[in-house]
């Protein structure tokens, strides 16, 4: 018996909502939405945690501007260090941001280890940044975190829409709660999400040219139209839930 499985729910019991930012594809803005949503929530005085589970392609530390990697403090487990008011766990704090080649079973074990030893504070939200695809990470968090809810990111592209639609259908088959679908990097002429996801469509995030220069800088990030749009979504989300 792996004892870690039995303690996961207990470690998450002081958390209000656990929201996985997902979408079947890479490069669609999952890490951007996860990081900025966490920032926006922390900025509006919510207690928020961010867990980066994209071990092999970790990106949230770059977006949030984490440059010095330290082991977390220990007290009956590991205590998530604070970054911009966010309780933040990223594997880069353990790997010093070196390449992390992991196969499926290793990913499952590393997720279990982190969930079993991390002592989250009381939180309103725990945001999880997911890797692309429906893979070990997706199946593991559905298996391990009973209260998980998914927020799906898609883009105005036929290719993305088709892939993301399949993952949404699978989540629905598995009876996993879907908070909504956000269409990211939109531009005026093309919209697919509204049609493809009529029931769960939340809205659009524009392509923001200023984002590139804002990466790593909290104040600039909070001024992007991405952050401003997400601020409105949190209002929507609070009303919905």
């Amino acid at each position, binding site marked *: *018996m*792996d*004892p870690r499985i039995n*303690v996961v729910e207990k470690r998450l019991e002081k958390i209000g909502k656990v929201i996985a930012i997902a979408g079947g594809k890479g490069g669609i803005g999952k890490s951007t939405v996860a990081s900025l949503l966490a920032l926006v929530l922390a900025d509006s005085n919510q207690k928020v945690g961010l867990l980066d589970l994209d*071990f092999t392609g970790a990106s949230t530390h770059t977006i949030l501007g984490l440059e010095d990697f330290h*082991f977390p403090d220990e007290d009956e487990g590991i205590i998530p260090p604070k970054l911009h008011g966010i309780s933040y766990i990223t594997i880069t704090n*353990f*790997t010093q941001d070196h390449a*992390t080649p992991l196969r499926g079973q290793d990913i499952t*074990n590393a997720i279990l280890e982190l969930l079993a030893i991390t002592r989250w504070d009381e939180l309103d939200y725990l945001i999880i940044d997911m890797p692309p695809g429906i893979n070990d990470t997706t199946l593991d968090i559905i298996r391990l975190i009973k209260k998980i809810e998914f927020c799906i990111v898609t883009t105005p592209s036929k290719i993305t829409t088709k892939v993301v639609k399949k993952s949404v259908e699978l989540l629905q088959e598995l009876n996993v709660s879907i908070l909504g679908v956000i269409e990211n990097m939109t531009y005026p002429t093309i919209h697919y999400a509204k049609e493809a996801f009529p029931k769960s469509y939340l809205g659009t995030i524009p392509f923001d040219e200023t984002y590139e220069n804002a990466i790593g800088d909290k104040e600039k990030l909070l001024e992007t139209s991405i952050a401003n749009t997400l601020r409105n979504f949190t209002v929507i989300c609070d009303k919905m839930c």
Partner: protein
Amino acid sequence: MHEWALADAVITTAKKVAKEENLIKVTEIVVKIGELQTISREIFETALQQVLKDAPDLFNEVTCKLEIEPAGFKCMNCGHEWLFSDVKKNLDDDETESIHFIPETAHVFLKCPTCKSPDFEIVKGRGIWVDSIEGEK
């Protein structure tokens, strides 16, 4: 120390089993710890005792047995097999500490001694395992 969190997981598991099996008393818990966790026996025993202080009465007479399982690897690229104990000394303090927190980071800091590939399987000695729980009904 984060060993407490793992010791807590062991006792939480024992509580669950005791309930499922209708045990009125738990007498023995056998725990296996993979060498890759680089957890010292003394520290884990102390952590278990701390957790047991707050455990229900059915654990009053429990003895916990710890076994450390040696860690071994097999290269997916060339098939070479080797032991953690052979390469442990080449790791610096931070690397050892990383592996202590998350054993999978071994893939970041260790390479196959023969072909230098990071693509190896951890065949044994990873994780923590409740091997058996004995008790009275």
